[in-house]
């Protein structure tokens, strides 16, 4: 909320020489963020004077109508100025900037020839003076002495603090609340504008001529005041001082009766609403929306009422959306003769709902959502009544009251409890002063305090709540710094370590990490040919964009988009990877929403966990172009399908798992160039070349390669001891085998490995020959054997080799190539 220093200083005994920065800091100290400090009038120098319009000559020969205005500035002769505005008449009091004055924006005023006349100054709008946003016309003053300094009259020179108020501090959206906080923060004297003497007197005025009041929806409000007032002189103008204060707080002056309700709201924090009493049928009621259909609100919008709305109605119609906005039907105008002034203590949740349902956030609703002071219903309505009496010659006819506010319970707190929470040993005085400053009543007994929170702090229910107040008013700077240390042996889990190692490994292998938004759309799902579980996505109810309403079921869509972006920016040789969760809509338990006043049972906790879909962790990569760039040493090396497979294998091998590799057909991969990698018989990775049609549709380079590994599905292995390192020499045997071309290299290797026995140290494919014909190919392997206790003889090694070949023959009808 915006608040001017001149108003604040009426209620805080500020020292004369305090700086704006010190005031802002004092607010910050007690938890009020200062969004900005506006020094009004700093860029404005006079002379700017009050003038009376004595003549108006209309100049019509120009593109727009222009006025040549004669002004009495008490100078002994008439001063003439040109003016483009039309919202004034002869005898009106206006604000005139004389030649030599400088308006905000370094706008220098001088006497000048314009529209064929000599203009000897300028009549100003509120906007030109930098005091309001109103540029629709010039300022017309309700009062003022001709020739006097208008800047003083308008209280232009002021400092306005724009303060953001946290949602638990409704009371602070007022001069009263912020002045109290500032006084508390600076340890200065505070005078409460709510201390007024005539409340009881007003409350006692009862008459059958007054509008009665009822609370129908007991959950909607616990207290409402309705004061019926005769408006003897409704056309009177709002006095300048009030108008200026309202404007400085960022609101607009509308009419005297409305301005008074707004003024009191700004001053005390209690929203008030004035109804035209003559259009009210029967009683004013706090009602739910169940029986009402529509209301046209003050902003002239015809709104549908929902049954959950909270309304102010009369016997037959909705007259206001409670605490949010009044109805147009009962709007107060210049001709209103009688008003019914409402001040209620509403249920803040209900008003928040009103505001949300109707997408209508008003000055009133913003305050009530945060909670208002129930004691203020009486005080604020009395204060407004008194102002109406004073400024509009009004008369209080009757006060009707329904309901009563809940009593605030006291809280007991001890110095030990405070120290245990805050880590500070405060003196009893520090504790008491802080609590007094926020308006609480405190009774001290030894080291314990019985605290009765003030009516505007219904949030103060527990020891922790009071601790915050004590810490806040004394300053969080008093809290010392102490580092608590957790448990010995804390370390990353195996899965976390795996994730980290794997990312670093990929980065060292030339891949760059991207973190994509995990959103996609159905077109992409279809284009990539995802089916089964991979096509079962979750839909976001309120997505950022209709282009991306689905949660990803796979990393590939995001990786391909990132690839497109980098290609679009000139990238040619690219290798990207991402680590992230995927979301597949493949069944989860129904939700449970237990009470939060105790720990749910183990069964319920399990149910909650099971209502959350399983989210697998993937690592995916995409690559295109050259992995070794062509250069002066000759041609480079392009990424090919086997690179994708190699990356997937490297990831699986880094986890210590052994795997099996098979050809498969799976979209969006090339049907002849897709590897499925299985661990313990379960597919955990796919890798290979992207389907050429996908490349074409997405405008990606031909032969773009992709891999994806489900890292959360790779078993966690316990660390095994290192192998013994034997120093006896190795014996090497090469074998070349003839097989059907349908037999995979990995399958043949597995057979050889099984047949070779346990002295086989390693096996590597070193040649592949496919020019044999008859559907045959030849694969050649190097087998390395080593024993722990002896040098192997050539006879022995030949035996193992033969056993390996025999196994290959048995499994795949392999024969030794001649």
């Amino acid at each position, binding site marked *: 909320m915006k608040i001017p220093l001149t108003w604040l200083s009426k209620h805080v005994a500020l020292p004369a020489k305090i700086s704006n920065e010190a005031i802002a800091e004092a607010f*910050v*100290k007690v938890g009020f963020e200062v969004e900005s400090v506006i020094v009004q009038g700093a860029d404005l120098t006079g002379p700017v004077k009050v003038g009376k319009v004595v003549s108006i000559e209309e100049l019509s020969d120009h593109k727009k109508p222009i006025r040549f205005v004669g002004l009495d500035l008490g100078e002994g002769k008439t001063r003439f100025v040109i003016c483009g505005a039309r919202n004034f008449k002869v005898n009106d009091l206006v604000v005139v900037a004389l030649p030599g004055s400088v308006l905000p924006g370094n706008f220098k005023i001088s006497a000048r020839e314009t529209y064929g006349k000599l203009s000897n100054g300028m009549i100003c709008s509120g906007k030109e003076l930098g005091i309001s946003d109103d540029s629709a016309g010039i300022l017309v003053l309700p009062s003022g002495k001709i020739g006097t300094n208008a800047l003083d009259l308008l209280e232009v020179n002021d400092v306005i603090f724009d303060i953001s108020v946290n949602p*638990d501090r409704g009371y602070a959206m007022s001069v009263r609340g912020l002045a109290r906080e500032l006084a508390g923060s600076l340890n200065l004297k505070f005078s409460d504008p709510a201390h007024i003497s005539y409340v009881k007197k007003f409350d006692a005025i009862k008459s059958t001529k007054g509008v009665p009041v009822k609370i129908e929806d007991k959950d909607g409000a616990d207290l409402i005041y309705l004061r019926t007032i005769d408006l003897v002189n409704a056309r009177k103008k709002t006095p300048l001082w009030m108008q200026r204060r309202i404007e400085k707080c960022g609101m607009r002056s509308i009419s005297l009766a409305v301005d008074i309700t707004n003024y009191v709201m700004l001053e005390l924090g209690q929203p008030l609403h004035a109804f035209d009493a003559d259009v009210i049928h029967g009683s004013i009621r706090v009602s739910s929306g169940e029986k009402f259909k529509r209301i046209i609100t003050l902003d002239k919008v015809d709104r549908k009422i929902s049954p959950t709305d909270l309304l102010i109605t009369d016997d037959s119609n909705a007259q206001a959306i409670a605490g949010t906005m009044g109805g147009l039907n009962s709007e107060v105008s210049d001709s209103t003769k009688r008003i019914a002034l409402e001040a209620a203590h509403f249920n803040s949740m209900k008003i928040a709902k009103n505001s949300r349902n109707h997408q209508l956030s008003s000055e009133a609703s913003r305050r009530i959502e945060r909670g208002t002071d129930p004691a203020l219903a009486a005080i604020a309505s009395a204060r407004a009544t008194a102002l109406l009496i004073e400024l509009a010659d009004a008369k209080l006819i009757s006060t009707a009251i329904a309901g009563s506010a809940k009593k605030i319970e006291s809280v007991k707190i001890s110095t030990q409890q405070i120290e*245990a*929470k*805050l880590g500070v040993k405060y003196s009893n005085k520090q504790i008491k002063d802080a609590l007094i400053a926020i308006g609480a009543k405190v009774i001290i007994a030894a080291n314990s305090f019985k605290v009765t929170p003030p009516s505007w702090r219904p949030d103060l229910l*527990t020891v*922790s*709540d009071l*601790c915050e107040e004590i810490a806040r008013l004394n300053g*969080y*700077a008093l809290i*010392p*710094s*102490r*580092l*608590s*240390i*957790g*448990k010995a042996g*804390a*370390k*990353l*889990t195996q899965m*976390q370590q795996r994730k*980290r190692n794997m990312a*670093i490994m990929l*980065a060292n292998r*030339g891949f*760059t*990490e*991207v*973190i*994509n*938004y*995990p959103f996609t759309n159905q077109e992409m799902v279809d284009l990539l040919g995802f089916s089964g579980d991979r096509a079962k996505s979750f839909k976001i*109810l*309120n997505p*950022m964009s209709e282009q991306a309403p689905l949660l990803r079921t796979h990393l590939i869509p995001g990786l391909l*988009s*990132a690839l497109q*972006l980098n290609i679009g*920016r000139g990238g040619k040789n690219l*290798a*990207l990877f991402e680590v992230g*969760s995927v979301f597949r809509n493949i069944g*989860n338990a129904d*939700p449970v*929403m237990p009470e*939060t006043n*105790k*720990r749910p049972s183990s069964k319920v906790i399990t149910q*909650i966990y099971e*209502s*959350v879909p399983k*989210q697998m962790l993937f690592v995916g990569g995409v690559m295109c172009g050259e992995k*070794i*760039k062509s*250069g002066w040493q000759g041609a*480079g090396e392009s990424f090919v399908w086997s690179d994708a497979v190699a990356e997937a294998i490297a990831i699986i091998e880094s986890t210590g798992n052994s795997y099996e590799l098979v050809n498969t057909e799976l979209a969006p991969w090339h049907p002849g160039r897709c590897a499925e990698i299985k661990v313990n018989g379960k597919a955990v990775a796919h890798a290979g070349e992207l389907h050429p049609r996908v490349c074409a549709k997405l405008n990606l380079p031909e032969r773009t390669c992709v891999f994806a590994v489900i890292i959360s599905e790779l078993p966690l292995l316990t660390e095994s001891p290192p192998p013994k390192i034997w120093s006896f020499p190795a014996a090497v045997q090469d074998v070349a085998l003839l097989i059907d071309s349908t037999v995979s290299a990995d399958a043949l290797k597995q057979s050889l490995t099984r047949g070779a026995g346990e002295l086989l140290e390693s096996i590597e494919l070193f040649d592949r020959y496919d020019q044999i014909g008859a559907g045959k190919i030849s694969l050649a392997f190097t087998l390395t054997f080593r024993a722990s206790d002896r040098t192997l003889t050539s006879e022995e090694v030949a035996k193992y080799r033969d056993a390996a070949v025999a196994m290959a023959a048995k499994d795949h009808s392999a024969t030794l190539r001649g």
Partner: protein
Amino acid sequence: MTPSDDALFTDEQIKSDEKLAIAAINAAKNLEDLKQVKIDFIGDKSPIAKANQRLGSLNPEQRAQFGKIIGAARSNLNQIFSEKNESLEREKDAHALLTERVDITLPNRQSLPGGLHPLTLLTNEISDLFLGIGYEVKEGPELESEWLNFDALNIPADHPARTMQDTFFIEPLEAKLVLRTHTSPVQIRTMLDQKPPIYVICPGKVYRADELDATHTPVFHQVEGLVIDENITMADLKGTLDYFAKSIFGGDVKTRLRPSYFPFTEPSAEVDFYFNGRWIEWGGCGMVNEKVLIACGIDPKRYSGFAFGMGLERTLMVKYGIEDMHDIVEGDIRFSQHFGTGKR
């Protein structure tokens, strides 16, 4: 020249032979010359070698006398020869290898530079510095139950944070699933799953319905911390934030707490740090609200705790002076490659 027998064993003769030999060695221009010099002046057929062979014919007295002289001469010649030989070999090497000279500045075959996203690097850095003081790292699902994301954190059904303006909801609403708006549900899961003492940090991806602009992104990363133990006060919170800020931004960084409001903490605070001459808002924190402890079955009479949470994108932007969020979220690899695998 063949020396006469008479002159065979004169000092002068030996000296003269030695001199000739030295002159010949020095005169050698290359290794071939030197090889010939060796044959002529040092080898078995050289005058000095021959003289040495004939020592045997002398009487013992003379043999001793001339043996010494000849020995000294031969040793001297051998030494001069090997020095010359080495010098000529070096000369030859230098000459021959120079013809194999390359331009050593030519680029090698270029493979691709890789790199981790700086958010990953920052997450690792933060994890490490908290592991160092005995915290575990906890992670949880991004698609989360409303109860864990809101209710258990004292954010009731009517709370403004639970509107569509802030939170992504999943269809159908009855499934009560949201994209988590903070990593706090991981705190709740931790408190439901294990008994105090609890010292954890929860890094991860979170979601809020904000448009992408220079400072906002609908998908961002957070790290939250949670401590539940006996005798935990707000001073422990302050100390932990000091440790965190100094570790990330440098040892001379100051922090300050400002009173604030969050439903899940009481007292609550904003934490700012002073960096490059100004206070920068970093995140929210506070003492865990007793209502949250109760919902998780932790006895607030015995245990107390604190929690804090920061945005990692913001931390990254401040730490590296990054001005536009787009650079972080867009996926242009030139950005990540700058960071490599960290700590350049």
